[in-house]
């Protein structure tokens, strides 16, 4: 449809290369945005008292839920929002860039999330990657 409308802007390998780079950067930004959301949610989840408080598990669950959402958002946006601007003969290459960009989103999210979890290990973000319990 977009092709019919003449909105294809990426026709050459050089243009695809630039678009790929943009896709990777976009992936990293998506990772950061969703990580910030995960941090806000983690902070909003209240401490619970008692012998089996559920709040640490809730924070961990939301962390991994948001990584999946970030993956889906990144991939689908590139597939339906960006791919139509690429000419048919370069679609295969762009799909590879899409996959790579999505992996970058996940990696950014998880690696930065891990680092934040260790930096703030005594706070709520510490629940994302808890240390093994001593027996």
């Amino acid at each position, binding site marked *: 449809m977009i092709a019919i409308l003449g909105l294809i802007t990426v026709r050459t390998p050089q243009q695809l290369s630039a678009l790929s780079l943009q896709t990777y950067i976009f992936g990293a930004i998506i990772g950061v945005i969703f990580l910030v959301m995960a941090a806000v949610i983690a902070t909003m989840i209240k401490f619970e008292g008692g*012998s089996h408080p559920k709040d640490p598990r809730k924070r961990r669950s939301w962390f991994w839920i948001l990584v999946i959402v970030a993956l889906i958002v990144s991939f689908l946006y590139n597939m339906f929002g960006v791919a139509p601007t690429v000419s048919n003969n370069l679609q295969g290459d762009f799909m590879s860039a899409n996959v790579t960009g999505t992996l970058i989103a996940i990696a950014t999210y998880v690696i930065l999330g891990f680092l934040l979890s260790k930096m703030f290990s005594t706070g709520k973000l510490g629940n994302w990657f808890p240390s093994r319990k001593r027996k």
Partner: protein
Amino acid sequence: MSYFLIGIGGTGMRCIEAFTHLCAIGMFDNKEINILSIDTDTNNGNKGRSEQLIDRYLRIKGGTDAKPTANTFFSAKLNIFKFAPEYSGNRGTYELISDLNLGTEENKALSDLFFGQDVQQFTLDHGYRAQTHLGSHLMYHCIVEAAKNVRDGRARNEDKQLSEFLDKIYQEGENARVFILGSIFGGTGASSIPIIPRALRDAIRIKDQNAEIHPNAKFGCSLLTEYFGFNSPDPSQIKSEKVIADSNNFSRNSQAALMFYQADKTVKATYKMMYHIGWPKKKDFSGPNSQSTVTGGGEQKNSCHVTELLSACAAYDFFNRNEGLDQNDIVFKSADYSNDSFNFKFQDFIGEAKTKEFMNKMGSFLAFSHIIINKEQGWKPEQSGALNLVRKFEEFKTPDYIYLPSQEAKDIDEFVKSFAFSYDSKENVIPGWLFQVRESIDGPFLFQTDSFSTNTRQLRDFHFGKIFNEEEHQFARKGKLGIGVGDPYQVFIDTILKDTGVRPSAEKQKVERLNERFLAHTYNTLTKLFNIISN
């Protein structure tokens, strides 16, 4: 300086209970205090309760190896000694103890002069039943007899404990401060307060003729006049028991005792400070189902009263006082009283100079109780609120309290329940010591009224950040962005986990054991949040 506390009789036991709670909130930093409990009624419910409380305190503190700490909960080291005269079997009455039937006619006549037949023949296992003339005589002799038993190698365990206590007083010389807690309106306390110093001196001399309590050792006592009453005995009970205490005589007994203390030279020469504590209204300890007078034993388990806290605070004053101990002085304290109720403030208990410290420590321990019992669900059977709080540290990788033994954590739970409140199997509120003290007063009492609610739901939802009436000493008053009401538990956990400034200090607080560090960490956090004193 060395500190010795003697609690005598049922009222003395409840005063010791109040004193132990003062130690638990941390009012006796850096001190080691030796406590002797004396009661003739070995199965007395009050005695059992206070001794159980002290035993629990000792376990929390770490037993005999414990050391005093500072600026934290449970800072004082306590040593407990228990003494009870032997009044069973062939020593069950005055007549039997004195061997009147085997003695001379003169002995019999002398006894008949001072003691009626009923007084000579009632059983002593529930105490002296307000026969103070008999009680003074018997208490003096049982203390002296205990010393003889130790000297002659036939001592009971109670005799040895008394002897050990006396040895400590002797060894401390002029540094000994001895405070005696008991009532003066007719019970064991009234019998013993006049004769205790003389009895202790004579007992020490029996063990070693050259030994003496140092003349500069200081003695003080509470003069606690009547504050409760109970059903008068009916004729049938009098006929069967022969001698029963009658609370209608308490006022007259108090008056006679005060007149005696005012005039007696020996008492005035011995006691440097006497703290007169009175109460305008008598609390009824009859009980809803009581048709007859309880003479003692396990049934006598009276609820706590503010006068006992005032007596414990009198001991605090005596132990910390540096002036006015060179001559006999009787002091008293009054509080704002209007519209038939008191309006107690913190300074009414402890004096102006220590008001903030007392306010902070009492409030912090009460807040700690709410956290352990309600927020960490220590109220649930088989759960320990202290252990649940410790697990927070494990989850968030703060210090190594995870190795805190579960038994020590459970002792903390049980202690705070004794201090504040607990719930029964039907989730009704069971008032602990402080709640009972609050119930003994008609007017306001130190903290927000809701902090003493006996409605389960209201108590569970209570905002412990607002324990104090003054807004400048409240925290989590508002939610995030100033919207709604804040959650004090969130603020407490956030602070204790993240704020490095509230970590326990081995140097300032002298805390070494895991238990001590955990308690100090909690104390520091609440002190910071309430903003009454700086750490």
